[in-house]
């Protein structure tokens, strides 16, 4: 057989440790989510009731369908809340460990900054900064590789979307300087 059997090994030096302490349990998060959903159901339910959730001569009013859906959502969340509270002693399963939370934040925070930057600098400049910054600071990759990858990817995106496919992205001062 001409098949080669070389092993492919990729290491992950920044992997979260297995023995990292738990930040929050799944039970606690479930209770929190159920409470949030309950509040959402109440808000939407009220808004739809205000819009009109009964029947008029032509059939159900605009708020009718969503009003009853809010009731179902509220019911489901309430049930979930009670089930979780009753089983709370058992629900000590870890939702996220400290090391995992750190890694998730390492993506979430840059993504948040990227969205903010897109608003002011345009999507392409923001994406260059996100990719280069993420590769260098989070992935600890070599600087020139990070810059080059970020530049190439952003350039390809610009050519693909703004030029070839005419899908216009938000722009900022840099593109304006080049007359785009």
């Amino acid at each position, binding site marked *: 057989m001409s098949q080669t059997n070389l092993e492919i090994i990729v290491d992950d030096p920044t992997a979260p440790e297995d023995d990292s302490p738990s930040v929050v349990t799944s039970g606690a998060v479930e209770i929190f989510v159920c409470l949030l959903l309950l509040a959402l159901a109440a808000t939407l339910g009220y808004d739809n009731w205000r819009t009109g959730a009964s029947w008029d001569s032509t059939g159900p009013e605009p708020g009718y369908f969503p009003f009853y859906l809010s009731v179902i959502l509220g019911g489901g969340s309430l049930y979930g809340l009670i*089930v979780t509270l009753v089983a709370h002693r058992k629900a000590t399963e870890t939702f996220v460990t400290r090391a995992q939370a750190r*890694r998730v934040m390492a993506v979430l925070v840059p993504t948040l900054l990227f969205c903010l930057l897109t608003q002011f600098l345009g999507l392409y400049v923001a994406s260059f900064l996100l990719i280069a910054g993420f590769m260098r600071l989070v992935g600890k990759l070599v600087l020139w590789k990070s810059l080059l990858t970020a530049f190439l990817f952003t350039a390809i995106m610009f050519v693909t979307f703004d030029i070839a496919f005419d899908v216009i992205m938000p722009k900022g001062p840099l593109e304006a300087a080049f007359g785009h």
Partner: protein
Amino acid sequence: MEALGLLLHGFAVLLTLKTLVLMMVGLVLGIFVGVLPGLGGPNGVAILLPLTFTMDPTSAIVMLSCIYWGALFGGAITSILFNIPGEAWSVATTFDGYPMAQQGRAAEALTAAFTSSFIGSLVAVLLITFLAPMISSFALKFGPPEFFAVYLLTFCSFVGLGREAKHKTVISMSLGLLLAGVGMDTVSGQLRMTFGSSELLRGINFLVAVIGLFGISEILLTMEERLALRGHAASISLRVVLGVWKDLPKYWVTLLRSSFIGCWLGITPGGAIAASFMGYNLAKRFGKDPRSFGKGRIEGVFAPETAAHASGTAALLPMLALGIPGSGTAAILLGGLMVWGLNPGPLLFVEHKDFVWGLIASMYLGNVVGLVLVLTTVPIFASILRVPFAAVAPMIVVSCAIGAYAIQNAMFDIWLMLGFGVVGYVFKKIGIPLAPFTLALVLGNRAEDAFRLSMIGSGGDLKVFWSNGLVGSITTLAILLLCWPAIDDVLRRRRMQWT
């Protein structure tokens, strides 16, 4: 026979250089996202969807469906070589696929996986070719009550047959239906749930939600895990391929059984995950030496892969014929149809023949081209895994943002996508299923319209949902399915008492 003629016409639509190039691009991109850690079928399709916005619908759907086939093929590569199932339906493939790779039979396992995927999809596509036109012409007679009953059946079967905790499915579905209602009411023109915000006037776009729920949340989840990999490299030689193919007839029962399971579970919302496990378990039960399963038996690769792909493909049948997606990916494709200005449902077969038959023909062609492509390029794709995730993650974030923005040219949608990303991450971790949410969000408005039109027609009489045999039996079936867990429980207790 009419179907055959139309299918040939579909091939004629496809056989242009442009479509063929798009097909190849779609397949390569699809395999790429399938192989990348943390991404798979629905995520890949959601992220790459914006690429197709400016294309004509036929080219767009061809490219998207090829991305999907590619992603399915790609998932098998990581399952077998690295023991990492890219998607839940690839889990069963790792049972025998990875042991085969360990024994130095990676090429054989990969060939088996790709070939059986191909066979599974082919059976499902054949089913679509002949059944979809029949169902859609039948559905042309449907009025609003019938449509509402079918939507109700879809929603109820998710609640009744889903594996997740019932209340979580209900939460997910009602939330999706509610969010679908945000914005202007299509019947009265009144504003609902906008709270005075001008951004919410447009409503919550389904695709923005999907990109956040599947793309961004998947990146967050992937980051949590250790990304170190250990696996086998493989290249496939023609001799291995022919060797596996020569033995195929021996396994015809397994292949056929898995194809049927897949088709059945793909049309009903059981889905590819259930299909792959069921395919595997049945092959094991009826196999000659059940104990040798899990130690590198080729049937253990054939069975789940055939079933998963048959199911993934068959999920497109209700989408094409009725406008009701049978899977998450089908829902995203359905969202795509709306972006391209097509109205999903039975009329599609009448009004857009080119589109429908082009799509069906592309399923045949895409699978053949995909099979050849993966068989020849496995070593290249396996090495994609060497690309550091720190480079891939921000690129996916950027692609998601481009996708979210491109749908309505709104910055607000990028923020919305981020919000859905966080929601998706939390929901996945506490076991609230995302598929019912996606389905509800895409069908919500149409279900509501159908309900209100039925009510207007009947003067507010709910008996309209039992007004004739057809609508009555669909509605009753829906309610039975909704109560199925309770009925099942009672039946089981009875049986216990008797024995």
